[in-house]
């Protein structure tokens, strides 16, 4: 069986390569070149990552290819992300990247080039039909994968999905993989969470605006663009008042950020979220007794889903249900089956 494995030059996909090899697959390592531009204060590590991926592939004596998806990544992921920010939402580019690039473009290209299956170093499992949560609960990445196509999932292997991250690292060290001690990249792969502000600034012109206290309407300070702020955000407000303030509301039209000192502010807490672009995986029905995740690593929260109104209702109040982010559904034994989910619209 010929498997095309997405290799990022990181520990996870490198260990995945060794596991596939051990299972006697004919493995081809593939680096997806999605972005290469350096941005102010951020050196894009693509060339080093590509070299690392190729170094591991060479060490394992497997075939190696580079897929250049820069144009498509810009269109499908970056443009989407920027449009969402402009609407005042906080999009999740990783979800879009998995749906559009890794499990669509890469999947299609791999099959065209003779692959029987694809594989990635994601922490997730599949039984060939269902998308299942990873064995390592802390690393589970099904939140980012809920929208990948059913056809792609049917032909995907997640070699490390049954492992604990700590064991993956140990195995990498034992096998003396040159990337065994490489630090992990977090968040939006190419900028990291810290760089998102600089990233947006490169593409969208922003204007300063007022920060007002929600309860009093009083102007507390100014911000450099409402686009940069996310519901529930506490840091980066640069207010010179003692107690912390939280972003509770954004008025994109007026470019005003509303903040509150009250962690219990009703804008911050909600039991309901309306969804858009709901995607339910093939063969799944959404049961009454549902568990959902409102962000990566958030605890599984009991909730119900009304398909008619596309609304999720939680048993408990939830903090900062952020438009643009996804709510992902789980059910089954130990709630390990990922049913799909949708994007929060309000």
């Amino acid at each position: 069986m010929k498997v095309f494995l997405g290799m990022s030059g990181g520990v996870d996909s490198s260990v995945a390569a060794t596991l596939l090899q051990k299972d006697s697959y004919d493995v081809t390592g593939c680096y997806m070149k999605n972005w290469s531009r350096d941005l102010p204060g951020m050196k894009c590590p693509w060339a080093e990552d590509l070299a690392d991926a190729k170094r591991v592939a060479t060490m394992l004596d497997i075939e190696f290819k580079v897929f250049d998806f820069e144009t498509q990544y810009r269109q499908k992921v970056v443009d989407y992300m920027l449009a969402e920010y402009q609407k005042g939402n906080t999009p999740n580019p990783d979800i879009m990247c998995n749906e559009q690039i890794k499990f669509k473009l890469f999947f299609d290209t791999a099959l065209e080039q003779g692959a029987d299956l694809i594989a990635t170093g994601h922490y997730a499992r599949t039984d060939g039909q269902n998308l299942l949560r990873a064995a390592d609960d802390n690393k589970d990445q099904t939140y980012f994968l809920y929208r990948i196509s059913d056809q792609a999932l049917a032909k995907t292997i997640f070699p490390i999905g049954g492992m604990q991250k700590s064991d993956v690292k140990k195995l990498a060290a034992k096998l003396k993989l040159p990337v065994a001690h490489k630090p992990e990249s977090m968040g939006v792969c190419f900028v990291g969470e810290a760089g998102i502000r600089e990233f947006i600034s490169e593409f969208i012109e922003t204007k300063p605006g007022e920060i007002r206290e929600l309860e009093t309407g009083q102007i507390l300070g100014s911000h450099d663009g409402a686009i940069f702020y996310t519901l529930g955000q506490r840091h980066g407000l640069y207010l010179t008042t003692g107690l912390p303030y939280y972003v509770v509301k954004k008025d994109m039209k007026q470019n005003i950020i509303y903040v509150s000192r009250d962690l219990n502010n009703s804008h911050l807490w909600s039991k309901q979220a309306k969804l858009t672009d709901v995607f339910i995986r093939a063969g799944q029905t959404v049961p009454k007794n549902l568990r959902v995740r409102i962000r990566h690593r958030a605890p599984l929260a009991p909730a119900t889903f009304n398909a008619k109104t596309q609304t999720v209702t939680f048993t408990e109040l939830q903090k900062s249900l952020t438009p643009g982010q996804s709510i992902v559904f789980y059910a089954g034994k130990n709630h390990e089956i990922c049913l799909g989910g949708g994007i929060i619209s309000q």
Partner: protein
Amino acid sequence: MFYLDHAAATPVSDKALAAMTPYFAADFFNPSAPYLPAVEVRKIYEAAKDDIASRFGGKGTDLIITAGATESINLAFTAVTSTDSNAVLISAVEHPSVIANAKKFPKFGTIKVDQYGQIILSDLAAKITPRTQLISVCLASSELGTLQPISEIAQLIRTERQRRLQAGDKTPIYLHCDASQGVGLVDIKVSRLGVDLLTINSGKIYGPKGIGALWHAHQVKLRPIVVGGGQEMGLRSGTENVPAVIGFAAAIKEADRHLASERKRLQKLRDLLRRELSNNPSIKFLGHPKCQLVNFLPISIPGLDAERLIFKLEQHEVYVSTGAACAARKGVKSPALSAIGLSTEQITGSLRLTLGKLNDEKTIKQVAKIILDVIVAEQERIK
């Protein structure tokens, strides 16, 4: 470790390290300061510069210390006074730094090279126009080691200079030679070569990195890129990097002293490596059969991916490189290897082996075997 990448970097020699060490802490003074210990440092600094310059038959006052060959090349290009887009000519096998500087003149000319990477003098002669102000040709190509006919180029420039003089045309024309590769292996004298500007650096001749120099003839008017306190005759401001210059001088002195013997030794080793590698007929040797730096052995194994070979070899602690592989990963073809007419397949399969102090006969025999084995294994894999 088997280090075959001396053209990329060399370890600082014991002598250079010992020479520079006192100037980091004990004799740390700013050479521009007025008190005696600082004046002493200034004297030693100037003497080191004189020492460096004298190796090339020049004077310390004509030597501008820079942060390396790249800066020297940038400074050399300031000799061009015209804004004519075709004021510059470079060879087709120059270092990226020379190419980048030439690109400041959108219609710069490229002198063709033959299959060995040596410039074709008739092509240069045909490309010199009344507007040409700077011709920049390396002493030896950094990818092939092919030596360029610098004094013949200088002769062509002298003829053009003569013509301009008789025509009353005051447009200057200069020859810049980037000698980043070759110091310590070739006896370089500015007057014999006939160059007006010479770039040298320390990091490839067992001196510290981040230090280099540009020698210039008196008549060449340069414009400073780094301005400030007016150091280096006003052409390169900033407090002098005293320890690095002392280390540079010590390294160059040592290189000079051992030039003849090291040349002979490295040529023998290079020829040995070449003979050993000849056992695999698919290995093609690149560069000039005669006019090549004695420590260079660029090769190509068409059909193989040189970057894979590099990663395979590093597992055996064999360190080789190629500018071409790095460029290929970034999606561009090495201009130098393209210029000598190599196909994409030949370029992708090219490696640069460069010898130096860290090699001896025993290790060369060992490393030859490792290289041959790795190449055969890769050839088997893709069969």
